């Protein structure tokens, strides 16, 4: 029997990316949150926030390790699993890939310094400054790698002759039309997810052990950040939809089950398809798709009928799209409600139901990120490079790919479990309060030692 190496190549890559994206998102978002917390701590001279930055960083390091190894895996797999893709597209996308490694290099260097220099600078702002290259490096890697993905969606910057890319313009390829909206959406949603995660941790701690000052401060800070970035994510989603309508209409049409080109198109929410491809049980919002796509209720929206059947994305992306949008708006609503409750000034925001919803919001945000990527990637099928290379032309021909799928699956299960176990051990046995007390004690001790020294006594 012939092994369908294309299917298994897709599964291996899908598996690695689904696992990597969790840690990549953390890797982009948490440095910003750490930077904010450390800065607030220095400004307010409040060691709660400084401790927050320290503890978040400690947890972050664990996830960085997994992020680095899975990132290395995906970088290698690009060539190992999709050799023909890299041979053809390498001429055009090598630049952003190369720059991504530079950004990663830059981030790695300063993260190492940041981690091991907590008490080495007299001026606390100097240490805080080290977060700037880390945050920038993380955002730059996201930018460069997303631009590669943008190229696969919207190829640009070359001439196409006899199956080869010629007359390459590396910068045009990088700044293709898909890049701006994609980068905006990726960054905003990553920061949103990071804030949702840390808010969930704080809310969980309040639910379990009561409202300590430390947890309350963390919760408030992160809910504020969450509100900002969930709003920006929604905005980025709108920008992306408008981009799709104009440049990649088959992806939007598949997501919206928009079969026929028409003016004043309806937005279809939820529902399912029966065997005859008829939409059942859905909510039709009149003319809303036209408005979403072109800011005009009567604009014409391209339907799937304009594409040959073998170039249409699978229709299941509708569910992914709806779920992703649902997650985004849920998080926006949760953070808005939290803010409203706070404005009532009766500490209403700390009621147990609110906290439970916030805890639930952490995993929900990650689900949203996964769903969004599934939508973006499955919505591009059957293309590897849209319009130029189909997925089946790009995959490896080695049947070993089947075994490798299971090997990598085992590896990721192991890594994920270990990561969870270590994180749990790290924080459960060492609550923030105990650490604060220890720090205060150590400070007092140091003060006493100094006084003793001044008095001329030998320090015992």
């Amino acid at each position, binding site marked *: 029997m012939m092994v369908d190496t294309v299917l298994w190549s897709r599964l291996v890559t899908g598996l690695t990316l689904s696992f990597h994206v969790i840690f990549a998102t953390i890797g982009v978002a948490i440095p910003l949150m750490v930077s904010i917390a450390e800065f607030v701590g220095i400004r307010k001279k409040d060691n709660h926030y400084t401790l927050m930055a320290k503890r978040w960083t400690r947890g972050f390091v664990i996830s960085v390790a997994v992020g680095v190894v899975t990132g290395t895996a995906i970088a290698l797999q690009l060539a190992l699993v999709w050799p023909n893709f890299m041979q053809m597209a390498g001429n055009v996308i*090598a630049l952003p890939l190369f720059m991504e490694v530079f950004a990663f290099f830059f981030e790695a260097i300063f993260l*190492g310094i940041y981690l091991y220099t907590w008490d080495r600078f007299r001026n606390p702002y100097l240490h805080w400054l080290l977060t700037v290259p880390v945050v920038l490096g993380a955002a730059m890697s996201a930018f460069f790698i997303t631009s590669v993905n943008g190229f696969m969606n919207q190829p640009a910057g070359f001439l196409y002759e006899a199956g080869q890319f010629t007359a390459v313009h590396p910068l045009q390829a990088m700044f293709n039309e898909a890049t701006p909206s994609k980068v905006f959406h990726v960054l905003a949603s990553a920061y949103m997810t990071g804030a949702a995660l840390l808010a969930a941790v704080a809310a969980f701690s309040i639910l379990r052990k009561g409202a300590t000052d430390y947890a309350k401060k963390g919760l408030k800070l992160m809910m504020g950040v969450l509100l900002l970035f969930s709003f920006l994510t929604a905005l980025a989603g709108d920008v992306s939809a408008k981009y799709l309508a104009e440049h990649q209409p088959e992806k939007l049409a598949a997501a919206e089950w928009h079969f026929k080109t028409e003016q004043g198109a309806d937005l279809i929410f939820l529902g399912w398809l029966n065997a005859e491809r008829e939409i059942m049980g859905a909510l039709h919002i009149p003319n809303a798709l036209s408005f979403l796509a072109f800011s005009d209720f009567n604009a014409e929206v391209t339907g799937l009928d304009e594409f040959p059947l073998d170039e249409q994305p699978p229709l299941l992306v509708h569910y992914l799209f709806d779920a992703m949008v649902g997650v985004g708006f849920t998080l926006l609503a949760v953070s808005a409600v939290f803010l409203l409750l706070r404005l009532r000034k009766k500490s209403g925001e700390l009621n147990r139901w609110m906290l439970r919803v916030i805890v639930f919001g952490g995993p929900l945000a990650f689900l949203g990120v996964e769903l969004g990527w599934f939508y973006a990637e499955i919505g591009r099928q059957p293309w590897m490079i849209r319009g130029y290379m189909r997925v089946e032309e790009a995959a490896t021909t080695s049947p070993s790919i089947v075994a490798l799928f299971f090997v990598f699956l085992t590896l990721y299960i192991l890594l994920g479990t270990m990561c969870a176990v270590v994180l749990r051990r790290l924080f459960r046995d060492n609550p923030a309060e105990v650490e604060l007390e220890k720090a205060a004690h150590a400070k007092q001790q140091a003060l006493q030692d100094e006084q003793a020294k001044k008095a001329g006594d030998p320090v015992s």
Partner: protein
Amino acid sequence: MMSYEIVGISVLWIFLYGYLIVASIDFGAGFFAFYARLTGNDHLINRLISRYLSPVWEITNVFFVFFFVGLIGFFPDAAHYYGSALLVPGSIAIILLAIRGSFYAFENYGSKKNIVFLFLYGATGLLIPASLSVALVLSEGGFITENNGIVTLDYLALFTSPLAWSIVGLALTSVLFISASFLAFYASRADDKPALELMRGYALFWSTPTIIAAFTSVLYLSQHNERHFQNMMDLWWLLGLSVVFFLIVLWLLFKGRAYGWAFIGLMLQFLCAFFAYGIGHYPYILDPYITIQGGATQEAMGIALVVVFVAGLLLLIPSLALVFRLFLFDADYVKGKK
């Protein structure tokens, strides 16, 4: 004016050399940590290892990613041949790197005492260089066949090749030699006499197999790839220089002085040998499928990559200098006072 593809391959070769040095320190340290545990010497060197390696392991990893992303960037054909042929060995290397990478994060939180994990750390330290050196063996030609555009790796030829085994042997011994020499230097900076004596012993011990493996590899290369061997013999002075540096290193280690100079000598020894090997490989990247001129990317991309590379170095060199100042040349940090 050098052509961009020559600049490209030179840059990549320098980066591979950089990776060879920093990764060897890392991989060898894993083996020594495990070995020292078995022989009850772990208290001597564990702290030394973790103080230097923890801040830099991610940087080490980037060197590697940098090399092969650069290789594919400059020479996209390499993706087709190496990518197809190395699916299995490459994936094994990914898994080993994953085990090792996660070690650094997890070791800080108690697992250091876990002998199984320490064993994995030590074992990957030897298995990763072995699996990566397979790519170098493949580049000599004769192990990859192409039919109708489908590239396959001849495992039987690979596993029965004395050249393959001698290169793997060279990779292993030099990893241990480089690592022990560096850790001896680091121990001398830390004024840590017992650790210094231990590492000096290891370095002296591993110097001999390293040089034997080097000569064996050259010998088998002469049988496997006459052209490459002849090219290297034309660079006899570079190889000779390498041997001279080796003798200086040996003498300094034996006398137990100037460990900093000894390590620099060792770096020069490997630099000379590595470049003699690399220049001799010219003009092939994969004999006989990919040549440097034929496999290079388009000019616009090649030039863009070189420009970015220079700009990137302007960013990286000061940053790396900062790392070295903070973690390698800061005497107080090295001694564990900070």
